[in-house]
């Protein structure tokens, strides 16, 4: 029989900026938040900014990250993470602020904050996790729910005539930000690429050239009611068809779609 001490000795490798005392984390099995937060943690480590980061998170599943990092953190109301970290950044420009939120927080209830802070080119970084539904509240339709996808509030599938089309966030943010901003869409299926995007977003803030935004395609097997195989099919197949991963705007490259 394996001793408990031996098990404890085999800790998975964690980013240095993670708060080990709060691990294992509280996200559902199969949830993508852990992978996205690992990418953020590694980016913070590699940039050496742990002592300068102020991490903000929303209400919704993202709030479970309130004590995730050994970084100063503020958990606020649904959709309001963007203005809270904007307020911090305006008051303390030497801080590196991260607003971490879901698709409901960023594209629905807090969309005015996301798009206006993007338009103003606030020197903040927004990381938005797109799992195509409202997870914490039990799987309702989100702005990002795919056409035909079933949720608790579109039980027969999202009907675009009735419910409109899914929000393409990075495309919208790229359209309203000036040169100097950074906009990308990554996916939990490609964590190294996602980490690269997050790192470039944070570097954009550190360089002070503009707003930075990364959407991360993510999973929600609990509310999708999927097994592992179907979950990965959704993340790797269905979602990227509608939500194309890649960089949409890079400072200095004038790269826009």
């Amino acid at each position: 029989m394996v001793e408990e001490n031996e098990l404890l000795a085999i800790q998975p490798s964690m980013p240095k900026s993670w708060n080990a005392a709060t691990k294992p984390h509280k996200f559902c099995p199969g949830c993508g938040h852990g992978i996205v937060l690992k990418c953020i943690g590694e980016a913070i480590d590699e940039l050496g900014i742990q002592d300068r980061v102020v991490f903000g998170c929303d209400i919704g599943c993202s709030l479970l990250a309130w004590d995730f990092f050994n970084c100063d953190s503020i958990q606020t109301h649904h959709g309001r993470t963007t203005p809270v970290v904007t307020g911090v950044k305006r008051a303390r420009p030497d801080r590196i602020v991260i607003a971490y939120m879901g698709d409901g927080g960023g594209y629905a209830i807090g969309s005015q904050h996301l798009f206006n802070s993007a338009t103003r080119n606030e020197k903040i970084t927004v990381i938005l996790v797109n799992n195509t539904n409202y997870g914490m509240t039990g799987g309702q339709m989100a702005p990002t729910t795919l056409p035909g996808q079933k949720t608790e509030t579109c039980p027969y599938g999202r009907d675009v005539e009735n419910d409109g089309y899914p929000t393409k966030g990075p495309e919208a943010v790229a359209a309203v930000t000036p040169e100097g901003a950074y906009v990308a869409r990554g996916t939990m299926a490609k964590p190294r690429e996602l980490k690269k995007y997050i790192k470039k977003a944070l570097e954009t803030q550190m360089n002070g050239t503009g707003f930075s935004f990364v959407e991360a395609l993510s999973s929600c097997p609990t509310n999708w009611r999927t097994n592992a195989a179907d979950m990965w099919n959704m993340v790797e197949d269905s979602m990227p068809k509608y939500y194309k991963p890649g960089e949409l705007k890079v400072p200095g490259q004038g790269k826009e779609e």
Partner: protein
Amino acid sequence: MAEKPIQGEKKAFMTGNEVVAWAALAAGAEIMYGYPITPQNEIMHYWTRMIPKHGRSFMQTEDELSAGFTTLGGVMAGKRAFTATAGPGNVLMQEPVSMAEMMRIPIVLVVQQRGGPSTATVIYAQQEVTLTTFGGNGEGFRVVYSPSNHQELFDYTIKAFNTAWKYRFPTFVLGDGYQAKMRDSLVMYNPEERGVRMVDSEPFVGKPGMPGIDRDPGHFRNTYNIEEELEEVLLQYIEDYKRMSPEVIEYKTEGIENGCDVLVIAHGIVARAALTAVTAMRGEGLKVGYFRPITLRPFPVDQLREAAQKAKKLVVAESAYGQLNRLVKEALYGLNNPPEIVELFRPGVGITDEEIVRKTKSAL
């Protein structure tokens, strides 16, 4: 900080909104976050004109939700930050105020009440009393000062920063459109020169050192695992609020010591008319008293009960339909032989001293 905004004691004749901007400067406010709404706009207008000289800053947000939440961010970053709003903006502001209450974030808000909610009738009202004292989903853990003239607008705007930072409850200065737009005289000053020490602001986040090594990370949250955990926090806040209340409660009285036939109760600018009316009637030898709560929250319950106990009737005068009266009735609940309340409610309309005299005399 750059040169002092006010040199010595300075007599001035200006609008209330200008007064608020000067008071915030004198109080050492470092950043204002705001969104345009009548009748508070000129606070932003004056603030933005004056700040370059004094190294302060301003951010115009996309709405009042953002103005409130950016103010929270600014305060949590350690700055003496404030915002100002009115009417529907005050409705939106209740969401960030709820967060401030539950996370004990000392934000300062100036509200210039208006009627409405729609456009045109936005000049004046006292209809934001209920909203400002108990708005939001929470228990009303906030301090609300109701000034009645320009000198008090100045004094209480300064005081609001100290109350907020000392007790860590969100603090309101509840003015109104008349006070905001009217010109009146006052004496402006730097608080230190009157012996008023400004309570130091302090960062919640972004303190020096590596979190997790040199210090604990600041983890600020509004989420609890179980209901009992929330209750425990709330009970502690209730305790803190009760302990604070006697130190914060303010009120003014006239002619109540030996009891009176009619006690006139009013707040804010209406209290100004009430004092004029009561002074005139007392000059005529009438046994009339005056009670004015300056803090609407916490409310001077014990002091009002004592005064009301010695009065035969009460006249409650307000530019709303019973919002102050609700606070009065709650304060007087359970009193033996409570005095009859005579209502002078003019929702959204100003009240003159003559009207108060007429109503009071009719009650005598």
